[in-house]
């Protein structure tokens, strides 16, 4: 392992838990603690904790911060009420996605921009340039980010915080205390379940983590067998977000993709006033329609379609697309994948799984929707 890797404030916790660590976007991160399938299932059925301190936190502040962000990203941050959050994207002038973001309006003059770890530096540089009238500060190193995700998340977090969680709606957040530490608590996540993301001072991260683990133990709500609140690593995070049909930068999103191809044209607010970076290109793209479409695939074989595998037309076997993400779905019990295919291409498709074509059926995204579960 390179000594250049950054540690999160919870490194010691992961070591005590015996995590398998991996390099991710320049950080040393927990990949799994035991079975990643068990961690995935804990989030679907109960709850689990994630260390997401590698994510980038960039504060944009000042009287004109909202309008400055309106120019910088394709969403409409100035229209957000304080306490609300929005999923949005930072695009290049040609409309390509530089990063996908969640922006929280923490107060009238303060916005917290959460960027992917791999893109934090470039987002920071772009925001400094695009929001020149506002203060733009990288708070990543000073911030611990812990997510508690799963249907029992609210029940476990409640006794540890002074915030009335029933009052925190989906994609909203509030300042409060968690385990006595100052925190921004938001009802957001990347798993397709209910849950919260807790931003706290880095030096308090271990205290918050331990309090949540203990609260999970005490409530018995953390998982089967009274084993307490389990931790979940990046492996489970990836299968959870894939089942939920959520894009991952570097897979479904990148500089050669506009939000429209990713099926996320709704995040581009062409109706907002004023210019923004990428407006001309995105306006043109919106008018001409997407050149390719992001689809969901369910494999008929047990061989897993993975990132980069070719998608073939059923009849001629010619290449019509490429798999962006694929994994065995713990919830569905079959391999699932997202793929870009030429607009108009109709399934079922073949997937070139290392030289042998395996059939796959097209399915609506997401693969898993908690609101449709019995």
């Amino acid at each position, binding site marked *: *392992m390179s000594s250049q890797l950054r540690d999160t404030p919870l490194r010691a916790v992961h070591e005590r838990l015996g995590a398998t660590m991996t390099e991710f976007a320049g950080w040393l991160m927990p990949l*799994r603690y035991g079975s*990643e*399938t068990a961690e995935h299932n804990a989030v679907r059925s109960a709850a689990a904790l994630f260390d997401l301190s590698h994510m980038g936190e960039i504060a944009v502040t000042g009287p004109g911060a909202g309008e400055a962000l309106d120019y910088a990203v394709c969403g409409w941050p100035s229209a957000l009420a304080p306490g609300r959050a929005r999923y949005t994207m930072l695009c290049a002038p040609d409309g390509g996605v530089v990063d996908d973001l969640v922006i929280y309006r923490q107060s009238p003059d303060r916005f917290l921009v959460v960027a992917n770890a791999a893109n934090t530096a470039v987002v920071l540089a772009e925001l400094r340039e695009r929001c020149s009238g506002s203060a733009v500060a990288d708070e990543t190193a000073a911030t611990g980010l812990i997510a508690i995700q799963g249907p029992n998340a609210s029940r476990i977090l409640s006794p540890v915080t002074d915030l009335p969680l029933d009052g925190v709606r989906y994609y909203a957040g509030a300042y409060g205390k968690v385990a006595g530490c100052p925190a921004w608590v938001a009802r957001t996540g990347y798993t397709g379940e209910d849950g919260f993301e807790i931003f706290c001072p880095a030096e308090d991260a271990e205290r918050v983590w331990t309090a949540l683990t203990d609260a999970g133990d005490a409530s018995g709500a953390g998982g089967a067998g009274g084993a307490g609140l389990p931790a979940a690593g990046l*492996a489970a995070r990836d299968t959870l977000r894939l089942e939920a049909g959520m894009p991952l930068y570097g897979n479904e999103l990148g500089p050669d993709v506009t939000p429209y191809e990713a099926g996320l044209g709704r995040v581009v607010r062409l109706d907002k006033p004023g210019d923004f970076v990428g407006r001309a290109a995105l306006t043109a793209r919106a008018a001409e329609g997407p050149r390719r479409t992001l689809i969901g695939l369910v494999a008929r074989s*047990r*061989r*897993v379609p993975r990132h980069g595998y070719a998608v073939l037309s059923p009849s001629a076997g010619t290449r019509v697309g490429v798999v962006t993400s694929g*994994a*065995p779905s713990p919830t569905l019990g079959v391999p699932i994948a997202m793929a870009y295919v030429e607009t108009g291409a109709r399934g079922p498709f073949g997937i070139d799984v290392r030289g042998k074509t395996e059939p796959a059926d097209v399915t609506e995204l997401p693969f898993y929707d908690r609101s449709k579960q019995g």
Partner: protein
Amino acid sequence: MSVPAELRYTEEHEWVAIDGETASIGITEYAAQSLGDVVYVSLPGVGSRVSAGEPCGEVESTKSVSDLYSPVDGEVTEVNEELDDDPGLVNAEPYGAGWMFRVRVAAGADGETALPPGLLSAAEYEELTKSAG
């Protein structure tokens, strides 16, 4: 990490146990832990011939897929059909219930089973995994 002394190993992380003319083959605990949860094992067909050092199957886990290499030459006599329903046996008992396939290997002129050269002893394999970090 368990590396049973009585087994032989490959650099690709398979183990092989010899009993008379039968070689039983699986993947090591080190391999199983590195892969994470195994979700599917594709095995060679019974009656097919496998060659030492050649891929003869695949091991799919959540995050990756790996080729399965045969450590020996011979004819496949049996595959572990339990893995079809419960591939997690590879993680739970890599040297036991998680075995993968059996091969009939030819005896040499002296009646001893002729193993291909290059298989590692337990000590050598342990050294390999340590140097791999």
